[in-house]
């Protein structure tokens, strides 16, 4: 080909590419006004399928443990065939929900408000759900499941992010989060932490107890200086971290092999580790803990609304809610579940219905610029700053 033809070919290709892309760029923000959806007035027959996005351990069909199965009974009862996708962090849940491929999601407090603000979930008519009256009152109409008096879903259960340690390698048994912060050097290279920006709140909870002069009132409302202090603490911790985890199965494997001996976890991780034969114990340290309070929500683009409503009602029914709570290691949301757990002491162990205890846990919420603790004189750091700080901490 002659050089001129070659050049004109290149120009042509570039021009075609530019043409293909000319539909992309605009010079202004995209503004969308919230559309008021008609809230459902009755539950019809199921559409035959339901795709669920949930925390691992919330949607068990017997494949992990044949004795743990509440998906098949649901399918038989409603004829809604379930497909399940687990996620490891709230951020992942928000991203996946935005694709519009999932009908229902179990959203923690740090995800639910973002989902509502992004119009990825729809208002739920709670009067259609038979089991809603049995839910503990202190879980209803909370900031993370209700906006402007409109309910967005069914409370599922709650719990704390715990400290887990290998009983044969960590002595004496830790009682404080200092095991992963100030005293982490004792187990250097074998400490683990949750791989999400929201873990900064765990450092803030620790600082609330050990550095009162920072005046942190709420671990999700940190001004610049308070965030810097938390980041410093986490950077010190970073030198002792062996692995960050977001996949609870991988974390358990590290505990079982001995690559990790101390770190943060969920009770479900401890339960799996115990069945794998690892010698581990968990506790809520003296400083208190961060935690989660989850809500089942319905995607705004769902085509399977009836199945979605049926799932929300089913998962909150006394028997199923007891099964989930016991398997995952959390407090059930349904007050009647406590009589149905296999372990009669389950609700005592997890302080279910103990409003005072529940209020001591700092539930995950999304940090925003308007301080959540009510301070008006400073700007707080928002989640994007937390995300950038988290990358910086990991280095």
């Amino acid at each position, binding site marked *: 080909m002659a050089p001129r033809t070659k050049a004109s070919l290149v120009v042509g290709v570039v021009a075609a590419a530019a043409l293909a892309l000319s539909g992309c*760029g605009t010079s202004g923000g995209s503004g969308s006004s919230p559309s008021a959806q008609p809230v459902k007035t009755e539950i019809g027959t199921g559409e035959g399928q339901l795709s669920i996005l949930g925390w691992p351990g919330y949607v068990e069909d017997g494949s992990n443990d044949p004795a743990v199965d509440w998906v098949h009974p649901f399918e038989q009862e409603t004829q809604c065939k379930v497909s399940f996708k687990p996620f490891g962090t709230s951020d992942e849940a928000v991203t996946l929900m935005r694709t519009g491929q999932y009908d229902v999601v179990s959203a923690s407090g740090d995800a639910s408000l973002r989902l509502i603000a992004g119009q990825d979930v729809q208002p739920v008519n709670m009067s259609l759900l038979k089991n809603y009256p049995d839910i503990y009152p202190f879980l209803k109409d909370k900031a993370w499941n209700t906006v402007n008096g409109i309910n967005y879903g069914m409370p599922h259960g709650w719990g704390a992010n715990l400290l887990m340690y290998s009983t044969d390698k960590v002595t004496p048994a830790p009682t404080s989060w200092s095991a992963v912060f100030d005293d982490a050097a004792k187990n250097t290279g074998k400490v683990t932490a949750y791989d999400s920006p929201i873990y900064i709140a765990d450092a803030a909870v620790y600082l609330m107890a050990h550095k009162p002069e920072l005046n942190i009132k709420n671990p999700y409302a940190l001004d610049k200086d308070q965030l810097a202090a938390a980041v410093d603490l986490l950077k010190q911790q970073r030198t002792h*971290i062996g692995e960050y985890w977001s996949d609870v199965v991988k974390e358990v494997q590290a505990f079982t092999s001995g690559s990790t001996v101390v770190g943060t976890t969920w009770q479900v991780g401890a339960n799996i580790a115990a069945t794998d034969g690892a010698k581990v114990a968990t506790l809520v340290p003296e400083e208190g803990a961060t935690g989660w309070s989850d809500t089942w929500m319905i995607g705004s683009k769902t085509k399977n609304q009836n199945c979605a409503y049926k799932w929300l009602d089913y998962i909150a029914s006394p028997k199923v809610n007891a099964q989930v709570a016991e398997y995952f290691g959390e407090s059930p949301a349904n007050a009647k579940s406590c009589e149905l757990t296999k372990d009669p002491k389950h609700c005592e162990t997890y302080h279910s219905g103990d409003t005072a205890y529940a209020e001591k846990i700092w539930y995950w919420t999304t940090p925003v610029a308007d301080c959540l603790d009510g301070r008006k004189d400073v700007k707080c750091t*928002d989640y994007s700053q937390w995300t950038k700080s988290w990358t910086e901490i990991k*280095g």
Partner: protein
Amino acid sequence: MAIQTQHLPPGSPRGSGGVPRAKANTFSALLHRRPRLRLAALLTAPAGWLVLVYIAALAALLITAFWTVDTFTGEVSTVWTTENIVTVLTDPVYQRITLRTLWIAVAVTVIDMILALPIAFFIAKVAGARWEKLLVVAVLMPLWASYLVKAYAWRNVLAEGGLLEWLGAPIGLSSPGYGETAVILTLSYIWLPYMILPIYAGFDRVPDSLLEASGDLGAKPLTTMRLVMLPLLVPSIIAGTIFTFSLSLGDYITAQIVGGATQMLGTVVYANVGAANNLPFAAAVSLVPIAIIMFYLFIVRRSGALNSL
């Protein structure tokens, strides 16, 4: 060229006595007369594919890097800004991560080169014809196993009380644990076949008579290696490095499985796409490895290595 037409005398039966001819095909005649049209018909499909799938995707990435995202709702706002690019280039964290990723990619490439040269030489020049085939198959074998399976296998090998520790215990070595070293080891293992194959093909192309001639003229084996073999092999080695270097530069899966807390460019992109949901920033970060690879390809283009890929 003009198409000849037959003038038949009236009344004579058609086709009798004349030279039998194929029926005139107007379409092929048209293409024959117009070379530009012919070229267009041949090139439109592949060029369209290239533009749509490859160039448009890269351009979309480039454009996305200049947008921002509303962190609370996660909506991408299409306001032009250079903030993402500036952050990636100036923030010390990302500079460190870029350098670390480069170091890992270079280390993997060098390790694979050192391992692949003797192996490829043995297969091409020392082993007999039957062994040669068997050994090539043996080199290709690991490629039949899934990437994930291999990475998780290394996770177990490197674990506390794993194979590496058990092997190293008698000589007082312990497993490096999960981290940068583990990533380099695992990636070197996974990409090794991609380095062996081009170098083996290169050795295979060096005629034996050339080596004999070098020996006849008084060169010692190492001198022959240095002055005859290596210059001929350079393009093949560079072809192998393109594979190992670019694949390591973009890796994010191995880093997550055996990297412990190690961050690479790939994991930062992954975290920003999956977790932080900041696509524009992820696009800005992903331009870094693209730029590095393009620069590398530009340098090696002159060596003729791209012809032996």
